[in-house]
C-alpha cells in the first residue's frame, strides 16, 4: 500500500499522541452534524494512522474524510493528549494534493499562490464585486460563491486602505491580509490608529505578501512555504508581526511563536496596561462570536472580551463552546451544504439572544454571519467597536 510521499506528511509522534479516548467528538462540528466516526477528529486521526501504518492508502475515501474537516481545530484545546491536529491535517492535505492532483486542486493552488497574493489582481476583483453590489447583481454570481459574497460589507468606491509603506520597517509590523485590505479596510485602519494611540511604533512593510494560511489549509505546503519565506524577509526588522484576521494570525503564531500575535491580543494588552482607556458603560449589548482560529487555534478567549468591555459594551455569550460558524476559509465553497447548515445553526442561536450588534474578529466569519443573519444586524471587528467608542468619548 502506498504510504506518504512528501516531507510534509503527518508525524508519527503527532499521530501516536492520540489515545482514541473520544473526548474530542462532541466539540467537532462535523461529528455533531453526522454522528459519524468518519467525520470525527479521532476518526480522521485514525485514518491518517492507518496510512502511516500501511493499513490504508491516500485514496478517494481518505480524501473525502479529510476534505470534510473544517480545520476549525475545536478538537485541540479539549484533547488531553495535546494532539497537534492542525498540523496533522495540513500534512494530510499536502499528501492528498501530491497523490491526488485533480484539476480543481491545481486551480486552487494557482489562485491561492498567484492570484490572492497579488494586490493588483485583488483590486480588479474588488472593483468588479463593487459594481455587482451596486447593481444588485450579486445574485448572478455562481451558487457556491453567491452566499458568501452576499455577506460582504458595502464595498467603498474609494477605499481608504492603509498603504503598505516603503520606509524602513520596525516595531510592530502589520500584516494587511490579502482579503482584509481589499474588503475590510476599516479594520486595518482601526488597528493602525489604536496601535499608535497605545504608543506602538507601527510599520506596514511594502514587500509583504499573503501569509499563506489558506494555501497551507488547502494542502499547498510549498506555496505556503514560499509565501512564508517572502514575509520572513519583509518583516525581518519588525519586533512582532500582527494580523487583524484570526486565520492569518493563527498561521503566523504557528510559524513564529511569540514573534507574531493577533491584533486583539496586542490591543487587550494595551488596555490591561492602561495605555488605552476603559470607556464608560453604554448599556448596549453585544454578542461575542469567537472565530475558531482565535478560540481554538490560539486558545484566546479573553482579549476580544476585554476590548468589548473596554468599549463600554455588555457582553452576551453564545454559550455553544465556540462551535464553528461554517465559514472556515474555503469551506463555504468546497462543502457548501455542511457550511450552510452550520451557518444557519449559528445564526439561529444569535437571533435567539436578541442583540443586533455582533462582534467577530475574523472577516470570513463576519461574511458568513451576515449572509445567514440577514438584514438588521451590525457585525464588526471588536477593535472597530472600541475605536468608535473611543472617538465618541473624545
Amino acid at each position, binding site marked *: 500500500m502506498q504510504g506518504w510521499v512528501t516531507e510534509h506528511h503527518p508525524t508519527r509522534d503527532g499521530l*501516536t*499522541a*492520540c*489515545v*482514541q*479516548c*473520544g*473526548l*474530542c*467528538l*462532541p466539540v467537532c462540528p462535523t461529528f455533531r452534524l453526522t*454522528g*459519524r*466516526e*468518519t467525520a470525527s477528529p479521532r*476518526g480522521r486521526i*485514525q*485514518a491518517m494512522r*492507518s496510512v502511516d501504518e500501511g*493499513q*490504508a492508502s491516500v*485514496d478517494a*475515501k*481518505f480524501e473525502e*474524510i479529510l476534505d470534510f474537516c473544517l480545520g476549525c481545530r475545536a478538537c485541540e484545546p*479539549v*484533547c*488531553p*493528549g*495535546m*494532539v497537534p491536529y492542525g498540523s496533522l491535517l495540513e500534512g494530510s492535505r499536502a499528501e492528498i494534493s501530491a497523490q491526488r492532483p485533480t484539476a480543481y486542486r491545481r486551480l486552487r493552488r494557482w489562485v491561492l499562490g498567484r492570484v490572492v497574493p497579488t494586490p493588483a489582481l485583488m483590486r480588479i476583483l474588488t472593483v468588479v464585486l463593487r459594481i455587482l453590489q451596486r447593481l444588485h447583481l450579486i445574485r448572478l454570481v455562481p451558487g457556491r460563491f453567491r452566499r458568501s459574497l452576499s455577506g460582504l460589507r458595502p464595498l467603498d468606491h474609494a477605499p481608504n486602505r492603509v498603504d503598505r509603506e516603503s520606509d524602513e520597517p520596525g516595531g510592530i509590523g502589520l500584516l494587511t491580509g490579502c482579503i482584509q485590505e481589499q474588503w475590510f479596510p476599516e479594520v486595518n485602519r482601526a488597528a493602525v490608529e489604536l496601535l499608535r494611540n497605545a504608543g506602538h511604533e507601527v510599520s506596514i512593510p511594502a514587500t509583504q505578501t499573503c501569509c499563506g494560511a489558506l494555501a497551507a489549509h488547502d494542502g499547498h505546503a510549498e506555496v505556503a512555504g514560499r509565501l512564508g519565506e517572502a514575509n520572513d524577509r519583509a518583516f525581518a526588522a519588525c519586533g512582532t508581526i500582527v494580523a487583524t484576521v484570526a486565520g492569518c494570525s493563527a498561521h503566523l503564531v504557528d510559524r513564529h511563536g511569540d514573534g507574531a500575535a493577533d491584533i486583539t491580543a496586542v490591543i487587550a494588552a494595551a488596555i490591561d496596561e492602561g495605555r488605552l482607556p476603559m470607556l464608560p458603560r453604554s448599556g448596549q449589548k453585544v454578542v461575542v462570536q469567537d472565530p475558531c482560529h482565535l478560540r481554538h487555534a490560539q486558545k484566546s478567549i479573553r482579549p476580544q472580551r476585554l476590548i468589548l468591555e473596554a468599549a463600554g459594551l455588555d457582553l452576551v455569550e453564545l454559550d455553544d463552546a465556540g462551535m464553528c460558524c461554517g465559514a472556515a476559509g474555503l469551506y463555504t465553497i468546497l462543502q457548501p451544504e455542511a457550511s450552510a447548515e452550520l451557518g444557519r445553526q449559528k445564526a439561529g442561536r444569535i437571533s435567539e439572544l436578541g442583540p443586533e450588534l455582533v462582534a467577530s474578529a475574523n472577516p470570513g466569519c463576519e461574511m458568513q454571519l451576515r449572509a445567514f443573519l440577514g438584514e438588521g444586524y451590525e457585525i464588526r471587528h471588536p477593535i472597530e467597536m472600541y475605536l468608535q467608542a473611543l472617538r465618541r468619548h473624545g
Partner: protein
Amino acid sequence: MAAIAELRDLLGSDRVLDDPLERRLYSKDASLMRGDPVCVVFPGDAEQVSAIVRIAARHGLPVIPRGAGTGLTAGASPMTGGIVMSMTGMNTIEIDPDNQAAWVGPGVINLDLSKQARPYGLHFAPDPSSQSACTIGGNLANNSGGPHCLAEGSTTSHVLGLEFVTADGQIHEVGGLAPDQPGLDLRALLVGSEGTLGIATRILVRLLPIADDVRTLLLDFPSVEDAARTVSDVIAAGMVPAALEMMDQRMVMAVENWLGAGLPTDAAAVLLAEVVGSTATVESEASIIAEIGRSNHARNVVIAVESEDRELLWKGRKSAFGAIAQLAPDYYLHDTVVPRTRLVETMAGVYEIADRHDLTMLNVFHAGDGNLHPLIAFDSSDEDVARRVKLAGEEIVDLCLSVGGALSGEHGVGVEKRDLMPSSFSALDLDAQARIKDVFDPDHLLNPAKVLPQGSRCFDFGGVRREVPEGAWV
C-alpha cells in the same frame, strides 16, 4: 454481499458504510482491541433496529451496538466481525419536568442531557469522566458510574425503564415511571448487560434536582496512605460526599502538564472531594473533611466555591486518562473494586507489583467506593514490556480479588476482562449467566463473545483460557 444490499434497501445506501477505511474507523472503541466489521449501520428508530437485527439473523451476522466508542473494554469492538450498529442518530430528548424524568434516545450524549435539563433545575446524576462524549446507551449497557455516583449510585439507579430490541427482532418495553413495577425487574437485567441481551432504543431516565450549593475540596498529602486513610475516615464519620477522588503524584504531574490548573505536583497524592446541599450543610461538611484531612497530615486544603474554580479542578480529574498520552503511546487500565477498609494495603500492593515489573504506574480513582483504576503507561512496540504489562495486570486483578474485591467497578467486562471472569465467579454462577444469555439470544448474535468466557455453560466448562486475547496491545 447480500446482507449489505438488504441493509442498503432498508436504510438507504448513505447509512450503510462498508469501505475498508470506514470499517477500520469502527474497528475499535477506546480500548486496545480491534476487530473488523462487515459494515457499519446508522438506524434512526426502533423499527429500523429491529429490521437490521432480522437481516443480520438471516445471514448469521453478529450485531455490535456502539454508542460513542469511549468504552475501555472492547465492548463495542467487533471482535467477531459482523455489523456495527452506531446509535448516534437516535438522539432525541423529551424531558418530563413534572415527573423529574426524561425519555431519551440511546445516542444522546450524557452531558447534553444534563445541559438540556438545566433550565428545569434538573440533571442526570451519573457522570463518568467521559461524560462530555459518552452516550446514555453506553452508560446503560456498562452500568457506568462516575465521581458523583458515590452518593447517588451508578447508572442502574437512574434508569427507570427502557425500550429494547432482542435478537429475534422483537421490540419490548420494561419498567416505567411507577416506583414498583409488577413482575420480574427485567430493567435491572438489561442495565449492565453490555449489549449482549438487547439493544436499547429508548431509555427512561431519572433526573435529579441540581443541588443548591456546592463546595469542591482539594487536599494534598505527603503519602498515598495518608490520603487513603482520609477517605476511610470521612466515610467512617458518617458522611457520603457527592464525590471523593484520588490521584497519585504521577497522575497529577501528567494532568498538570496539560492543564496548568495549579495542582500540587509535589504531593504524593491528592484528594478531590465534593459536597452538595444547602449552603449551611456544604460549609459544615467541607470543614469536617478539611479537618479529617489535616489530622491525616494533609499539607494543604483548598476549598473552591466559585463554579469556575470548581470546574477547573474537575477538568483535571476528568482528563486524567487522556493525559497519559503524553507519557507513553499506550496505556492499560484496570478497573477493580476493593473494600474501602483494605484500600491502603491494596494500594501498597499495586505499587509493589508495578515496581517489581519495572513499569510506570499511575493511579486515579473513585476512592470513595474503593473503585481503583491503576493505569500502566507503556509502549506496545516493545514486546518484553507488553509481556510484563500483561503479567502485572493479572497480578493486580488477583490481588484485588484476594482482598475481597470485584472484577469490574464500572467499565464493564467486555473482552478485556472476559477471560478473568472465572476467577471471580464460580462455574455455577457463570452457568446461570450463560443460560440467561441463551434465553435472550440463543444464536449469540448480539455482541457475542463478550462478557462471558467461552465455555461458560456447565457442560462445556473446562479449559478456560486466562488470557487477554491476541492483539490486546495494538
